[in-house]
């Protein structure tokens, strides 16, 4: 009896494991002929959702019979994608963020050229401006980036990098217009002196910065921006020679400014220990007077500040430079991003691939593009007699609510899918927030007070127009797995993470020696290999765009 039981147990364990293995093969089709696929987005955090649960997603499902389960990244994207690569199991659609090239290297993405040419005329048209640029060395297209440029339109509000300062400080000091870094810090110093605490008694934080995980731009990028460069790396306009700036004089100057700031007690000592959440909490608490960075990085906190009832705790961005006379280049020119983007993965059946590409093709139609950007005519926007898209005040208020955007599908189906950037052929802006009529309507009393004080119509009017450059952005260059350039990327980040705090928080007397110590270590890194890779990519892109 005992033996039999034992044998039976062993057999049932075996049987169960076989059964479990057999079950993992699933089918995408549901009973009513609607196909559900998975889309994993490593570029964005957010709520997981099925597209058909949104208004626009449902419309797309009715047209194409396809919907998607969207999953977002939690934690570090490289680790998550690394696991996918190691196991060889991918979702149907994948946006692999920084790891895009590694997935391509591992054969995780399938070439899209023929699929698009054969089944997706609208998609082909949408991507026409960058079709050649999207091809990798092997001639294949693996990923579809978001934001395909279709003409340039200057944004009315700052979405990218700037030196931000609390409006209350500007108002208190009679709307000064800081141009250099010294003027900027002087305003902060003055305000912090007059207001050591906020209204509810918390200590004022004069200047903070974020330095956590991949959020390194607040510390890394200013030297380039302050000297009038675009996109945080130095590229010679004539020779297209590329230089990293971490070991250059401009970086020393920038760190020196922060060192001075720290010496005056104006620099947030928690800058290097806070994580992303703590940083966002700090910004939204209204205690911070100034910081540098792209607006989107602090967006969650800034939106909270904008929605509360104190309009003076909002921030205004300035294009600060080292010295008077340097031409600022903070605004992005028309750019031709090719990575990251979404790609179809290997292991997806050919029939499914065709269905997915047809869905994307439907999405690429101009009327669909208007749906995922502006929403539904008559509900979220109106068209006036001149054919301009406008929004009423109620529509603007409605669209500002996250819940409404979620339900409509504007969060699930906007960016990260094949989407245009710039202007539609009828002259309307693709991004509603960039449409002058909408932006103007969205300005409240206090916004207007500041616009008037600085004698501008839009907040970007104090920024210099960007010079068009064909190789922007440079960060989508392909850095090969296991190459020296990749090693440099990691090693330099580590070195900078360790060294900059020492340099900035050093006693001013020890500043020079700390800097020299860092520079010596940095010069030993293979940074030339990195420069070569970027330079090759910049040159190739410049050539292609001609």
């Amino acid at each position: 009896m005992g033996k039999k039981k034992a044998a039976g147990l062993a057999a049932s364990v075996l049987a169960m494991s076989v059964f479990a293995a057999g079950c993992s093969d699933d089918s995408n089709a549901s009973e009513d002929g609607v196909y559900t696929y998975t889309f994993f987005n490593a570029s964005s955090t957010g709520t997981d959702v099925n597209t058909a649960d949104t208004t626009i997603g449902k419309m797309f499902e009715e047209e194409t019979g396809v919907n998607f389960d969207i999953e977002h990244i939690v934690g570090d994207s490289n680790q998550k994608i690394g696991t996918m690569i190691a196991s060889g199991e991918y979702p149907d659609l994948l946006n692999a963020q920084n790891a895009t090239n590694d997935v391509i290297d591992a054969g995780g993405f399938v070439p899209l050229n023929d699929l698009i040419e054969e089944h997706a005329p609208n998609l082909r048209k949408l991507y026409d401006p960058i079709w050649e640029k999207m091809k990798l060395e092997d001639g294949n297209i693996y990923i579809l980036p978001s934001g395909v440029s279709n003409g340039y339109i200057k944004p009315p509000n700052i979405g990218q990098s700037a030196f931000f300062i609390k409006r209350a400080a500007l108002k208190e000091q009679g709307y000064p217009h800081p141009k250099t870094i010294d003027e900027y810090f002087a305003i902060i110093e003055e305000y912090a002196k007059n207001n050591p605490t906020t209204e509810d008694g918390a200590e004022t934080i004069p200047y903070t910065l974020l330095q956590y995980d991949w959020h390194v731009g607040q510390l890394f990028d200013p030297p380039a921006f302050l000297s009038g460069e675009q996109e945080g790396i130095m590229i010679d306009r004539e020779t297209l020679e590329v230089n990293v700036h971490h070991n250059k004089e401009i970086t020393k100057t920038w760190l020196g400014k922060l060192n001075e700031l720290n010496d005056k007690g104006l620099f947030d000592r928690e800058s290097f220990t806070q994580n992303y959440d703590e940083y966002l909490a700090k910004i939204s608490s209204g205690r911070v007077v100034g910081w540098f960075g792209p607006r989107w990085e602090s967006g969650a906190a800034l939106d909270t500040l904008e929605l509360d009832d104190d309009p003076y705790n909002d921030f205004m961005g300035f294009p600060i430079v080292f010295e008077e006379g340097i031409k600022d280049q903070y605004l992005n020119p028309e750019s031709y991003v090719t990575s990251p983007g979404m790609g179809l993965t290997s292991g997806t059946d050919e029939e499914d691939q065709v269905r997915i590409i047809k869905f994307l093709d439907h999405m690429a139609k101009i009327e669909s593009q208007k749906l995922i950007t502006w929403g539904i005519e008559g509900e979220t926007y109106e068209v006036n007699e001149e054919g301009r898209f406008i929004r009423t005040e109620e529509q603007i208020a409605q669209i500002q609510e996250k819940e409404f955007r979620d339900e409509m599908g504007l969060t699930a189906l906007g960016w990260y899918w094949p989407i245009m950037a710039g202007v539609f052929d009828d002259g309307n802006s693709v991004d509603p927030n960039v449409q002058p009529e909408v932006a103007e309507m969205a300005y409240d009393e206090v916004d207007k007070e500041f616009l008037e004080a600085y004698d501008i119509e839009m907040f970007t009017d104090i920024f210099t127009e960007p010079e068009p450059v064909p190789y922007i952005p440079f960060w989508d260059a392909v850095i090969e797995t296991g190459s020296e350039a990749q090693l440099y990327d990691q090693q330099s980040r580590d070195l900078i993470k360790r060294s900059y705090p020492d340099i900035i928080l050093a006693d001013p007397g020890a500043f020079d020696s700390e800097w020299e110590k860092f520079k010596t270590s940095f010069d030993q890194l293979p940074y030339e290999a990195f420069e070569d890779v970027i330079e090759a990519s910049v040159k190739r892109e410049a050539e292609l765009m001609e």
Partner: protein
Amino acid sequence: MQAHSKLNSASSEALHQEEKGLKPFLKKCKSQRALLLMTIPFVIWVLVFRYLPVWGWTMAFQDFKPARAFAEQEWVGLKHFIFLFQDERFLLVLRNTLAQSVINLILGFVTAIGLAVLINELANMKFKRVIQTISYLPHFLSWVVAAALVSSVLSMDGIINEILLALNLIDSKILFLGVGEYFWGILAASDVWKNVGWNTIIYLAAIAMIDQEQYEAAKIDGASRLQRIRYITIPGMKQVIVILLIMNIGYIIEAGFEAQYLLGNGQNMEYSENIDVFVINYGISMFNFSLATAAGIFKTVISLIFLIAANSFAKKMGQGGLY
């Protein structure tokens, strides 16, 4: 497993008392076949999860790329090991790993044994249960949550700074996580807070095994409470302590990963980065699986050396080892 150890001992001195040869062995197998059958799933488990993956060690000697078949992989010899040992960071990382481990090990043992003895001395059952429950609750928190708690307690506006200021022990607030030298201490303290209660369970069990008559006899002989702890409780736990010590020494190179990863930052990196964090940054995150494997092999070898050394040391001290 039972059968295995029997087999092992059969080849040693005990050999003389047992009959040699295949026949008696088969006979014994037959008489114990129920036991043998029961071990099969576990032997399979060990083979599948502990021995099959060893095949993956070949990756350490290749420039491994997931898309390529095994035959197409490029063999590079000891390249990844050389990279590891030549990187000056690696020595630092090794130092951090060992230091964090040793501190955690010693502190973990002392506090857990201490707490177990104290709990055992409590007479009030209700109070005893409450203390036990409270002390082992943090064990069930994930490190992600625990690390967030630790970092907010230690922040500039955190409770520790407030208390120290109120007691006039410090003049200005201290950025605890920003001072590298404090990191090992913070890590060890957080680890004790999180795990001390859980670790006492096994010691309490060991104490429960001690014959109550010994205590009564000691009482009659006039032994004080402290003397009873010293001469009865502690020696009674000795066997368990030694076994746990040997097992833990085997894990000395595994200083943990989550706490260091979550509490680490640029300012304390010189002290927080250990082998596992290094492997994540330079191995997995860079898709350099070969390097990660090489570091894994290195860790296994070190663990094995420590385990064997600790075991033979314990045997020499007359404590009887694991095997």
